[in-house]
């Protein structure tokens, strides 16, 4: 908010402008910035719809997704079956709804796992430094040395194809990313922390550490969460597609695509349902992530960009 003070000199008005900032919590400003971003809001809306639909699947799904009805097999979309039926006569639309529950749950659990394990590792490494840091980071680097899907395939292959193993595998693969970020922030904040701790005697350094560090890393973690969530959805779909994840007859977007592949010549409609839903899910998460990143970065806040003088003066003087 721009504050103009004018002073009358004998020859004219002398104006100085100062810019004041009203005290608003970062959260509120971030929220406003986010809503200004149309793509991000659209993503949020889409994601909410997907989540609601998945949660309500048992209620709104017209059919039970695993019921086999061979007389109805491979029927194209109609009023009875909005998206048609598959080889076993199962309703595609219902399968998509239930499949959403699995995909979204996997995404959520994977990210939670990665955060729950990765953040403490990063905190420990950054806080204690020295050899502990070295060993932990080498460990993380080693895990980062695997192409993600490969490690997941190997783990699932060895432990057995099961949706739970998939979640475990994907979670493990995502841990190093969070560990690194948290470690980086911890390291940079740690220096300040000891100084402050020395000054504010009596407050436990751990408490200072946690509150300060957490404030610093919130934005990068939040973005990573969205990125990894999207990646987990795609990875789960890939693994199920290959037969390593969801086992039949459980509905899963990836698994259904495998079937779509087999009957692609006869029943192409099987293809589009899962593809479109996966894309919507991933796109919305990506847009939300972009929006969050911009909303939490003070440099891109549009509330500050109404000053006429600065940017242009640099350009032209």
């Amino acid at each position: 908010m721009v504050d103009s003070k004018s002073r009358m000199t004998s020859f004219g008005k002398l104006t100085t402008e100062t810019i004041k900032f009203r005290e608003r919590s970062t959260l509120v400003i971030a929220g406003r910035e986010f809503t200004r971003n149309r793509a991000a809001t659209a993503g949020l809306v889409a994601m909410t719809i997907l989540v609601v639909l998945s949660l309500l699947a048992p209620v709104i799904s017209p059919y039970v997704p695993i019921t086999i009805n061979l007389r109805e097999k491979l029927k194209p979309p109609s009023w009875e079956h909005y998206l048609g039926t598959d080889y076993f006569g199962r309703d595609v639309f219902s399968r998509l709804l239930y499949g959403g529950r699995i995909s979204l749950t996997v995404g959520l659990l994977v990210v939670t796992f990665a955060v729950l394990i990765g953040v403490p590792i990063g905190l420990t490494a950054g806080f204690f430094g020295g050899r502990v840091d070295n060993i932990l980071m080498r460990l993380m680097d080693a895990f980062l040395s695997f192409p993600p899907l490969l490690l997941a395939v190997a783990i699932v292959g060895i432990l057995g194809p099961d949706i739970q193993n998939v979640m475990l595998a994907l979670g493990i693969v995502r841990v190093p990313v969070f560990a690194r970020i948290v470690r980086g922030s911890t390291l940079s904040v740690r220096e300040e922390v000891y100084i402050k701790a020395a000054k504010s005697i009596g407050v436990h350094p751990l408490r200072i550490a946690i509150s300060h560090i957490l404030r610093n890393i919130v934005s990068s973690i939040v973005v990573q969460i969205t990125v990894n969530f999207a990646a987990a959805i795609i990875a789960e779909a890939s693994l199920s597609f290959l037969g390593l994840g969801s086992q039949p007859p459980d509905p899963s977007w990836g698994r259904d695509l495998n079937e779509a592949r087999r009957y692609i010549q006869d029943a192409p409609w099987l293809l589009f349902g899962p593809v479109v839903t996966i894309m919507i899910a991933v796109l919305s998460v990506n847009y939300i992530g972009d929006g969050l990143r911009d909303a939490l970065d003070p440099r891109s806040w549009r509330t500050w960009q109404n000053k006429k003088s600065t940017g242009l003066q640099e350009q032209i003087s």
Partner: protein
Amino acid sequence: MSNRLSYLIHRLAQIPFVLFVVTITIFGLIHVTPGDPIQIMLGMETSPDAVAKLRQQYHLDKSLPKQYFIWITNTLQGDLGESIRLNQPVTRMIADRFPISLKLAASALAFALLICIPTGIISAIRRNSSTDYFLSGIAIFGLSIPNFALALLLIFVFSIKLEWFPITGIGSMATKMEGSLWQTFGPYILPAIALGAQQTAILQRLLRSSMIDVLSQDYIRTARSKGVPGWAILAIHALKNALIPVVTMVAIQFGYLIGITITIEYIFAIPGMGLTLLNAVVNRDFPVIQGFTLAIAIFFIFANIIADILYTLLDPRIRY
């Protein structure tokens, strides 16, 4: 000793530790599975004698650390064991299939570069115009669709509806180089596009932001003030600088792609590392799983190191 050399040595010195962790992980995973590995590998109907014999052959009667030691020493000598199902030495399988996956990854990257360089440049020059938004929109599309889904879509449109491409046929790619140009390269096209779409999006965004950054630099203004024509400013003055991070990213992606080929190889029946690994996983063929995972991981590590080296080589400022 120059900085660059010491940095290189530092990076190379980290490899043994990383490999140690990698091998321990793979080894550990297999040997902590509940159940007897041999039993799992062979299925339930084998006689106890055969099982005992195989146990001895695979050193499963010895202690775990000893098994690990044996495995590592064998590996260093180039012996990765034999596939249970195919009775072939794993090393030979790798030698046969790795090049195929490499060719697939290379064609995916070639496609990516072919698209991303012109579109990245155009996006940068006309930033925030409708062209830019349109191209960025397509890029996001490429980023958000799993590669196998894209492959299926492409197959549907081009192979089934339009009948431009055969659905599979890369099996013959490995051996023959004869035939018309279409026959040799044709089967590559769809898999390359499917595999490379995500990378195209990433590289295009990277090149765009890199170009925008470079074009706002003072030395571009100097070049303009010298009367250098527009195309030369873009192609020589700007690109040479803007491509540096892109080239590094390409090296990283090459390593990354090798680990991702599995779905595409599955769909197009390409006999590369991914498909073989998948079959091994389905058949619980542990030597193959072990050996292949190790090979791919090592390749990935080296690709990253090469990316680092490339970066220091390409930017003259980081020479001394």
